[in-house]
């Protein structure tokens, strides 16, 4: 995790009015150069300039730029090129991608969504200078906005069949988690016989909430674990606080009140869920085909499961604290910005015009400060899709850190 960013000495250049700072990125490489605001020609000229700078002659590429709202917009004609130059604020950030034939839909917040798709989210625009350093185009397997985590049943193969472990994945939706829990009495079979023990149950699902829409949880389901932690002996308030604390990635193990859906055929299993839960359908099916151990045969089936490890892999989830650095700002310039922006502190809302000092020509991808890159690394964990994509994006960023471009 600890990325040793080389402390590169950078001398800030004076901001000259009629020169536009351009920072272009192709794969992992960055180029920085100046562009005369008025004296530059059209799109084709610019296209060739970029090909020259990046030494990618003969490669068909797409040009995109980030506008002030954080949207990723295409540059493919003179008109939008000029628009891009005029909107540079003060840096014009260009992203070059190989043409691969698939169309990219440009919508609002597409930059953000793209970032999210790559597991880079929550980054404050203050660090926008380093955004693209993480944005490894080589990673793009498919259109990122179609690839995301969904709420699903997990760990079917290791849980007794009467239990169900559900991951509620919010994925940036505005939907509330939407359920209530209550105290109740649960009947357990122990060596001493049937025993009544206090338990925690789902008491209500909010209409239109995440819990209801996934269809994976139901009223009167008994909650046994939260993110791998056994709830035995915990009060309702404790369980509530645990769930809220884990709400960004909530994994609950329940004993469904309705046990009839447990050993259902594959088809019905999938149809039971929300359409979004298809993604895990396969794994459920395969797990169900195995002979899952009966609950009676396992003494402590839950704690023995891998859910703790599962939780661990998400350990860094909420580490994505956003850190704003204002140290390179002169206070008089800062004030208007903070007053307007920090009051509307939405971590995805763009901050503009914060960096008046720009690194000269060539710089390290994350030369803007370790804390920024750090926070963005954290971010990558947060929304980094599956475990797979997390690790791979991490790796790619390690590469990032090592690339030195001259």
């Amino acid at each position: 995790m600890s990325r040793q960013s080389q402390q590169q000495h950078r001398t800030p250049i004076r901001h000259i009015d009629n020169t536009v700072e351009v920072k272009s990125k192709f794969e992992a490489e960055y180029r920085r150069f100046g562009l005369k605001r008025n004296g530059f020609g059209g799109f084709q000229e610019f296209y060739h300039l970029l090909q020259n700078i990046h030494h990618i002659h003969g490669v068909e590429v797409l040009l995109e730029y980030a506008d002030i709202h954080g949207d990723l917009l295409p540059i493919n004609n003179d008109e939008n090129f000029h628009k891009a130059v005029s909107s540079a604020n003060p840096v014009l950030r260009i992203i070059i991608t190989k043409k691969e034939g698939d169309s990219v839909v440009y919508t609002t917040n597409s930059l953000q969504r793209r970032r999210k798709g790559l597991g880079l989210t929550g980054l404050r625009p203050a660090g926008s200078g380093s955004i693209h350093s993480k944005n490894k185009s080589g990673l793009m397997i498919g259109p990122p906005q179609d690839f995301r985590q969904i709420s699903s049943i997990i760990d079917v193969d290791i849980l007794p069949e009467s239990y169900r472990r559900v991951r509620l994945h919010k994925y940036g939706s505005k939907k509330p988690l939407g359920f209530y829990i209550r105290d109740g009495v649960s009947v357990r079979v122990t060596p001493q016989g049937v025993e009544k023990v206090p338990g925690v149950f789902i008491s209500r699902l909010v209409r239109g909430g995440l819990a209801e829409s996934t269809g994976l949880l139901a009223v009167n389901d008994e909650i046994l674990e939260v993110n791998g932690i056994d709830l035995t002996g915990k009060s309702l308030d404790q369980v509530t606080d645990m769930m809220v604390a884990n709400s960004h990635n909530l994994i609950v193990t329940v004993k469904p009140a309705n046990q009839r859906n447990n050993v259902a055929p594959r088809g019905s299993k999938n149809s039971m869920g929300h359409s979004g839960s298809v993604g895990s359908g396969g794994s459920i099916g395969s797990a169900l085909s195995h002979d899952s151990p009966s609950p009676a045969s396992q003494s402590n089936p839950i704690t023995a499961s891998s859910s703790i490890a599962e939780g661990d892999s998400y350990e860094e989830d909420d580490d994505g604290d956003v850190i704003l650095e204002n140290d390179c700002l002169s206070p008089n310039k800062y004030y208007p910005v903070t007053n307007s922006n920090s009051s509307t502190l939405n971590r995805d809302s763009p901050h503009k015009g914060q960096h008046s000092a720009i690194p000269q020509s060539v710089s390290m991808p994350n030369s803007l400060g370790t804390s920024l890159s750090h926070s963005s690394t954290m971010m990558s964990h947060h929304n980094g899709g599956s475990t797979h994509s997390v690790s791979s994006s991490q790796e790619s960023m390690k590469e990032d850190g090592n690339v030195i471009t001259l």
Partner: protein
Amino acid sequence: MKRFRRHGTESQRDRLKQELFQFTKTVEHGFPHQPSALGYSSSLQLMAIGTRSGAIKLYGAPGVEFMGLHDENAAVTQVFFMPHQVELVTLLDDNSLHMWTLRSHKGLSELLEIGRFLLTGPPGCSGGELLLLGTEGGHVFIVEVPGFRELEEMNISLDQITSCVPDDYVGRRNLEHVEALQENPINSNQVAIGYGRGLMVIWDLNHRCAIRHIPATQQLESMWWTENGSCILSSHSDGSYCCWTLRTGDKKEEEEKSNIPYGHFPCKAINKIVQLPTAGGPPFLLFSGGMPRASYGDRHCITVIYSKTQVAFDFTSRIIDFFVIRDGPHHTEPSALVVLVEEELVVIDLQTEGWPVIQTPYLVPLHSSAITCSYHVSAIPLKLWERIIAAGVVQNTQYSKKLWPITGGQNLAPDPPQRDLLLTGHEDGTVRFWDASGVCLYPLYKLSTAAVFNADADLNDNMSQSAEGEWPPFRKVGCFDPYSDDPRLGIQKIHLCKYSGYLTVAGTAGQILMLELNDEAAEQTVEAKVVDLLQGQEGFRWKGHTQLDVREEPVLFPPGFQPFTVVQCQPPAVVTALNLHSEWKLVAFGTSHGFGVYDYLQKNTVLVKCTLNPSDQLAMEGPLSRVKSIKKSLRQSFRRIRRSRVSLRKHHISNTNKVIQEANARLEAELAEMELAPVQRKIEARSSDDSFTGLVRILCFADTFLSDSSHNTPSLWAGTNGGTVFAYILYIPPVEHRADEALTAQPAKEIQLMHRAPVVGIVVLDGHGAPLPEPLETAHDLARSPDLLGSHHVLVISEEQFKVFTLPKLSSKMKLKLTAVDGSRVRRVGVAWFGSSRTEDYGESGLVFLTNQGDVHVLSLPHIKMQIRYPCIRREDVSGIASCVFTKQGQGFYLMSPSEFERFSLSTRYLVEPRCLVEAPLPPVFSNQHQPKLEGASSALRYMLSPYFPFFLQEIQKSLEGDQT
């Protein structure tokens, strides 16, 4: 990583933990909640107080105190010391009797319960080695103590009484309900039995017959047998008392006079009457109650009559009981009246002209006005200590000079190693300073902030002052006064700099007062400064209370802490965070709207920052918000309607059948309970739109590396309810230009914690991982200066997690999740130093915190590893948890009731607990031959201190039995 950890280091650490940490609840300060019984032993000079929750507390000389708790959760209705013994008997309202003793163990006494006995009916009173128990049915049972063996042959049954009393009294009802039992002071074989209807019978225990009877006709409240045995005083429910002279030989007793002291109009009952002779003068007559019902029926009075002087002491709450302490060569002269009322203990000096009140060294009502906050300062420099005491002495001139009259036991506790102050802020705008160094929480000084403001209702103090010739001759005593004139005056936050004597207090209406200690009275104008925390945020309208009106004219302040500046936040919301840096002469304050820094030297604002979330409208409601209550009351009224309909219907149907009706009622009650408490919790992620996210929870000053790693600068840190931390670099001019050069604050960093839990603490750690010292601490050579070579870290404590960030880069270094793992949340947090109990020179800093589950934990610093965890407070006791404060030595205080602080310690080295010894009252005259009765018993008690206790207990029993048969 775990598998690489070696076992050796683990166990070594465990051993170290044992040397460093230990959890003990040491002592309870303040006044017991809901006292219900009072007892006094003149031979031990110990006072006992029983409470409604079944606690029994013994107090002697300052520092001598014992505490016991009955297993039954029943109220203590009577406490009775065995004469000349170290034992006492308690009676609970579940009719159980309990025997307690003070047993010596390793040179210290401890209070132990040694026996119990369950009665079948409620008794009246008792005396001597025989315990007489009067019952509601009219019988008197005689029980031998210790051992609680019922002496059946001695019981006084109703039949025996009936046979001795003239027939006109024999009516069944006349002999019901033993109201009072009194032993003849000069002949312990004679007992007066007073029945509820007024009849009193004097019974001879030896001859087992009634000697005489006194035919009073009024409902009896209490009896008193005068010292010389010649008279019995009886007090009655109509507010009268009578004196009956017992003439030997005469069969008929003569009622000397029936006296209704506050007569003419109907009076309330006289609950207790006491008459005590003096050596060379008229006797003291004391009685409680007896006030005219219509005009003064609500007063709680004890009247003291001596010669021509009569005073009706008017108490602040219901009188539980009272007794008179007597001194002089034969312990006969009444010297002090001790009155236990529901909310305080008042002791009145009866030997000094004017009967002034003696200040109590313990049992002081902490809650004379409700406590709103508390603050602890350790190791006060002697100079400041003396000045505070001097300021307090000036305030306490009305008290008697007489020494505290209850002097039993020996305080063996060593002198406290340092001077500690506990400051409590109160609802009425006062701050009280308590000496918290030792076992007795002693009041030192009281500061009132109300004088700074124009109060709406200027107190008409002369109303309570007794006018000349008023009847009854009232005199107000006691300090319990829960009524606040203006809730806005309430103190919310306190910060005292012990080195400079600067104090800042902040209150409910956004007021922040800066005060300075001055030994002289001074008349000065308090400068007011309004700070707008909204900073031009549009669309908000404050719906709460208005700000306080600062007096513009000069005000005369008595010696002590005198305010010189008041900052008023706008909107005037409750101040939620406060910090003072006396070296930089800055005060930082925060409310639910933002925070600011004020320079009290130049008297201007250095920084104002609005933290308000634009979507948060609730933040604009004052503390008296009606939004929630309307919703709640609507819901409740709907329920009420529904329930009343249901019960109406049921009423019609089941009118005939009582059984069904009862069953239905039970069912309905159950239903109502379920309806009223739908134990259901919503699970929802916190969002940035939540209410009160902008509320500032913590402000902290630190000299650290915020901009780069080579230059340390003064900085301010602020944490909010929404999980945001703001850090500002402060520019403070050099000392020579401090007064004229401008100070600036420059925003440097901002952390938004992803989990958005409220930030409750910020601690900056130096290069050694130790917390930064307090301002001026190094300047006074009292602390090692912080390490500025190594890299600093900042520990951000949210309700859910602990996170360490590096400085100045703010990269996350370590964290500890609390809520996600065990569901508890951090409520209170403090940094403490723990010394090892084994070696003098080892110690380490730790982070102490209390969770909403009521557990205290210690975390190591700087590695934030969990060290220990102890259950401390019941988790239902929300106000107790909220009131907890930690000291710098690993102790803590929390309010176990509105009037009591429980003190606990997590440290092995620093403990403040009562260590005292109570010796048996008579000199040990033990020989192997038991002397008859009294001596035998008391000398045996002396031996109870020895390990052969059980054997000797049997011996006593045998000897007592021998005496009686």
